[in-house]
């Protein structure tokens, strides 16, 4: 396990919808790439070379400096056996590490539980966005879900301070556990109390944040900026999660424009996030991992790409050992899975194991459901 000044923090971003790994990290010297991508091939002179074989999509340019500095790990050919081509199933598999059964417990929900078993801090896990992503779900684990940090709070329409305090006090007492009301009612009461506590604490974060760093005015930009503010405030948040707008990477059509914009949004905002927490002096204990539930079909369909299997994931941080991990999947026809999908050679649970064992100092085996060989990016 890496030693950091403060407790390690795991920041995770899901590129929801199935990011086209082959046009993110491009095998630009492989002639089959041109054969498979007659409509969507990125011109060679625009590709940002990483090695003499592989290069980044031009929209990923803001991340090149982290590669050069040795802080960006790229995990190639990542997936799992018998990859599901259904978004929801595959998202759930990545979220729960349960490829065969229906899992309801998210891997990050388990992380939150393991670092804070008694649930002493309602902000151990914070989601940036609306709703509760499956990755963070675990029975008995509280997660604050922050859609917009600047307007977060309860009964904010009561103007008079004393009156609001009284109302919130009554609210707290009414939300005490009630007997025999059922599991969902228990859940709502717990959520209410957690919301009350969490809102109190979170409302102080923007006041502690001084930064000149700009983020793109996109959903991803807003969430990563809020993430930087909450991390900066030292509330003890150990798991920070966000997701690109749901399913937005599902580029079946018009991919040439759409995918470039998506990758730019990722690269610009991830760069802002890293720059921000570095300037704030808070980057030492953060590793950011971003992934997608699957890659896409090797051959384009004339306008976009259909669902595939093996994809690409990234880890970025001061303690990340940059470089390539795993093998780039073979493009040869005989090596493609049915219908033309890239074969995975790294199991996503190996990446999780690395993050859990070597970064968070947790027992990965119990969380990912088995022993998986760690990668060396940490």
């Amino acid at each position: 396990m890496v030693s950091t000044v403060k407790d390690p923090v795991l920041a995770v971003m899901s590129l929801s919808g199935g990011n086209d790994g082959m046009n993110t990290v491009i095998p630009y010297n492989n002639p089959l790439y041109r054969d498979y991508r007659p409509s969507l091939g990125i011109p060679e002179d625009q590709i940002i070379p990483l090695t003499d074989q592989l290069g980044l999509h031009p929209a990923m340019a803001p991340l090149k400096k982290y590669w050069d500095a040795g802080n960006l790990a790229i995990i190639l050919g990542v997936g799992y056996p018998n990859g599901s081509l259904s978004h929801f199933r595959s998202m759930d598999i990545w979220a729960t590490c349960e490829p065969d059964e229906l899992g309801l417990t998210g891997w990050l929900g388990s992380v939150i539980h393991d670092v804070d078993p008694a649930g002493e801090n309602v902000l151990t896990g914070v989601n940036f966005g609306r709703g509760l992503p499956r990755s963070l779900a675990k029975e008995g684990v509280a997660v604050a879900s922050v859609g917009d940090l600047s307007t977060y709070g309860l009964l904010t329409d009561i103007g008079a301070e004393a009156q609001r305090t009284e109302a919130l006090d009554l609210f707290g007492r009414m939300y005490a556990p009630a007997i025999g009301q059922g599991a969902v009612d228990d859940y709502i009461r717990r959520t209410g109390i957690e919301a009350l506590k969490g809102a109190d604490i979170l409302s102080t974060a923007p006041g502690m944040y001084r930064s000149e760093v700009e983020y793109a005015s996109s959903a991803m930009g807003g969430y990563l900026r809020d993430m930087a503010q909450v991390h900066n405030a030292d509330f003890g948040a150990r798991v920070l999660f966000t997701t690109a707008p749901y399913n937005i990477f599902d580029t079946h059509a018009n991919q040439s424009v759409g995918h470039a914009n998506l990758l730019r949004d990722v690269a610009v905002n991830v760069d802002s996030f890293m720059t921000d927490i570095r300037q704030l002096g808070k980057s030492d204990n953060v590793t950011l991992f971003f992934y997608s539930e699957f890659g896409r079909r090797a051959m384009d369909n004339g306008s976009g790409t259909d669902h595939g299997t093996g994809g690409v994931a990234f880890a970025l941080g001061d303690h990340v050992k940059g470089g390539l991990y795993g093998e780039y999947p073979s493009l040869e026809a005989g090596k493609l899975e049915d219908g033309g999908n890239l074969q995975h050679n790294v199991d996503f649970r190996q990446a999780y194991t690395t993050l859990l064992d070597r970064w968070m100092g947790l027992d990965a085996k119990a969380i990912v459901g088995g022993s998986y060989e760690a990668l060396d990016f940490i």
Partner: protein
Amino acid sequence: MPDEKIALMAHLLRRAGYGASRDEIEARVAQGYDSVVEELLNPGDDPGIDEDLMYRAYPSYFDKAAIETGQTEWVYRMINNKYQLKEKMALFWHTILCAGDNKVDNARTTAIQIDKFRDMGMGNFKDMLMMLSTDPAMLYYLDNIESHKTAVNENYGRELLELFSIGVGMDNEFNYTEDDVKACARAFTGWNLAPTIPVFPYGRTPFEFRFDPADHDYGEKTFLGETGNWDGGDIVDIICKQPATARFVARKLYDFFVADEPPVPSWRLSAPRDLAAIQALEKAYFDSGYEITAMLRVLFHSDFFKDESVRFAKVKSPADVVIGTMRMVGDHTEPKPGLFFVAMEPKYMGLDLMNPPTVEGWHMGREWINSGSLIDRINFASSMLGNTDLPGVKKIVDRLMGLGDVPTSEQFLNGCLDLVGPLDLAEETRSQLTEHLDAGGALKHGTESERNDFTKRTGEALKMIATTSEFQFG
């Protein structure tokens, strides 16, 4: 104890619509349950609102060029449509047959799809699937416009089976294979859009369906064991006669109107919570030749729907929270400024109308609740119910004054709960509220200033009731 007829009618109107004021509930009780059900099931072509008045007040609703306009118009209809079930069915289908404007990027086309759900929502399921398969928003959303004879795009073909009709599995078996997906997708090749008119200068015009025979795969296909030169219409025919399709529609109706079922992807492994209920609905599906109205008639007359145990046992959807609250407080019952802000609320609570998170739709039930959405739900409902200037709240105050000269805290609280439900509270919640009311002194309303104080305290009590855990259920 609340009146059982009132409680049952309130339950029907909350589930088959977005709730009702106490005045309406009483009138409906007088009308009789069976007659109310038939009225809900037979709206005919009546739009249920004064459309001329609406279009005069909000001219932009006539041509919904922006998604927010479509959302606002929809919320106006939800609040005011006197055929509430017809209106609720538009949302029912939207939560299943999902197309999102975040991809379609043509608000007019997306809004037209919702209108079709409203108009056809209680019709025949086969007609619904045919409409869907020729619906421009759907064909665009799931890339059927990119599916060609020589380069098939499986997106629509797959989701039609996985999420819109058959479902991935039941009784531990898979309902179809990857080969069925491919055959299905081939059958819909050439189901496309007409060339579009340039965006400038008037914005996007609605997309239009066009079948392109030159791009259709007329070859032989084997789909769910049947071989022929199937096109999309044949596929829909074959889909509709599957037992798994009956199961799918039945479970979806049960989930929406009776009690929460888990999401579709788990249906292969998870049995229905009430198999007999599902079988009764499946029977209505086949007996009627796939008529949704027939299934709904069975549902609303069934014991499993009327049962006390299912009342206030479903977590309200954001639409139920927002529209239910508006109908309770009697606001925006006619055109006036400020509707836009109300119409954006469901989105903040996780239901971005016309923008489902994925083609799978929203995860419902308890998944509507997380610390973020709970804060939004509480803040919205409590600010409305606590506003004693609103007509519905005023009526509640008037009725509470009828309880007696000086109601006890307990009588007063029971009165409040009766009028917003009738809702029951856990003993723990109730005692906290009673204690709070006791601390405020006697609830008199004899003099002008006592009446003002009584009104203010009613607002405060309703506000706190709207924050309770119990209020999250409908």
